[in-house]
Structure formats: C-alpha cells, structure tokens
C-alpha cells in the first residue's frame, strides 16, 4: 500500500502541557514526509478532536498577546491550510454547549479551502478503524 492513513486524535486540553500543540505540528509535518519515502508512498493525516480536546478548537485564543506564544488556533488554521481533514466530536461540542460560532470552523482568513467538520463520535471511531496507525495525544 502506497498511501497510509494516520489518525491524530487529540484528547487533551490546550496549554496544559504542549501535547496538543505537538499533535498539530506533527500532523502538519506530513507535508514534508515524502522526502523520507519512496516514490508513490505518502501519508494522509486525519485530525480529530474528542473529549476535552475539543476545547483546543475554541476561537479567539489570545495566547500570543498574553504569553507571546502561538495559539492552538493558529496551528489548527495551519492544518486546514495544508488541507488536513479536521474533525470535531459533535457529542463533546454539545456537552460543552459550544456553538459553531465559538469554534474554528475555517481558516479563510489565511486562504484555506478546507473547513472543520463537526461529526458524531462514531465517525471518528470509523476513521480510527480505517487508519493504519492511531496517534493519541
């Protein structure tokens, strides 16, 4: 099989440790993985936020103004810009009472075509099922 799917599942809060940040930077690094692979081989990443991990997707993060570091928001937008399929667990969005307005649903402002998708947990489970490897963060 020449293309392998890797699921990056983010289950942890932002800004506690750098775990969710590293999930994003590693997913985005799939852009350059070809240099290490044979012709025709590649990796398709899929990114999913579940549980408390959905709180990474809240819009308007001012981490840069407050602490001088890039926000998870800017990383998620970069993931969309690099056409990474980005899923947010619908049940958890509902549990936390978050409206679509409150979430990072697109990155049009930086020119991304890809948009986030709010999907049931079962669909994320199916992505894990069809992935070659699951990386849990």
């Amino acid at each position, binding site marked *: 099989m020449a293309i*392998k799917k*890797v699921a990056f599942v983010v*289950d*942890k809060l932002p800004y506690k*440790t*750098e*775990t969710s940040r*590293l*999930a994003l*930077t*590693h997913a985005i*690094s*799939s*852009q*350059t*993985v070809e*240099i*290490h*692979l044979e012709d025709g*081989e590649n*990796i398709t990443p899929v990114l999913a936020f579940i549980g408390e991990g959905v709180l990474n997707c809240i819009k308007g993060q001012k981490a840069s103004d407050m602490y001088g570091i890039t926000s998870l928001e800017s990383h998620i937008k970069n993931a969309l810009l690099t056409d990474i399929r980005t899923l947010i667990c619908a049940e958890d969005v509902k549990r936390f009472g978050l409206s679509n307005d409150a979430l990072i649903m697109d990155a049009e402002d930086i020119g991304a075509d890809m948009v986030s998708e709010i999907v049931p947990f079962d669909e994320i489970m199916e992505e894990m099922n069809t992935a070659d*490897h*699951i*990386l*849990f*963060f």
Partner: protein
Amino acid sequence: MSKLTIGCFSSLVGSMTTDFVVKLAEAARKKGHDVDIWLSGNGTMLSKKGQRSFKDYSSLEKTIKDLVTGGVNVVACEACAEARGFHKEDLIDGFGRKSMDWYLASCFSADRVLQIGGE
C-alpha cells in the same frame, strides 16, 4: 520480524515513561523486532549528554547506547531539543536528531506504533 515505532512525548526524569519506553524497546529487540524511538517535547531531555547518576533517578545513558549498538534508532526532535537549549554537541553518542517528518516516515514503515502523549 516486525517493526515497532515508539513516540515518547513525556518528560524524562521522575516520570517513569522513558523507563517504560526503554524497557519495552529492549524486550522487543530481544524478540527480534526492529524498533524506532522518537523523543519529542520534554522527551528530548533523554538525549542530553552528561546526566549525572543519582539513586533517585534512573540513569538511562548507558542503556540508550546499548540499544543503539543493538540496532535501535533513537532520535530526538531537533526543534524541541533546541528550544530547551540542547544543541548538537549536547547529544548522547548514537542518538539521532531529526525533524518531525522523520517520525511519520518511521510510522509509515512500522507494523505497530505506540504514541505516548504528554502527561
């Protein structure tokens, strides 16, 4: 013979996660499996040369060198290491330093991947 890639994003000292990773790698190698280890985030602390051995902490420098001699690839994330002030000259002999895509490429060719997130 199959290949196991282990990603370890956990901090070195006090947390027992790097001990876990090293012991699992040893056991897998003994059974003839290939093993790659990727250290990212605070996990890159494992790559620092000159860790002094105290009885309160497991000192893994020798074990790491034995793993490398035995054919295990042990690689630290370059950016994460630099951010912590660990430069090329600080690296334990045999320890690699690569960009994040190396880990994904290792996952590509692995039969099993164990990704250990941060605490």
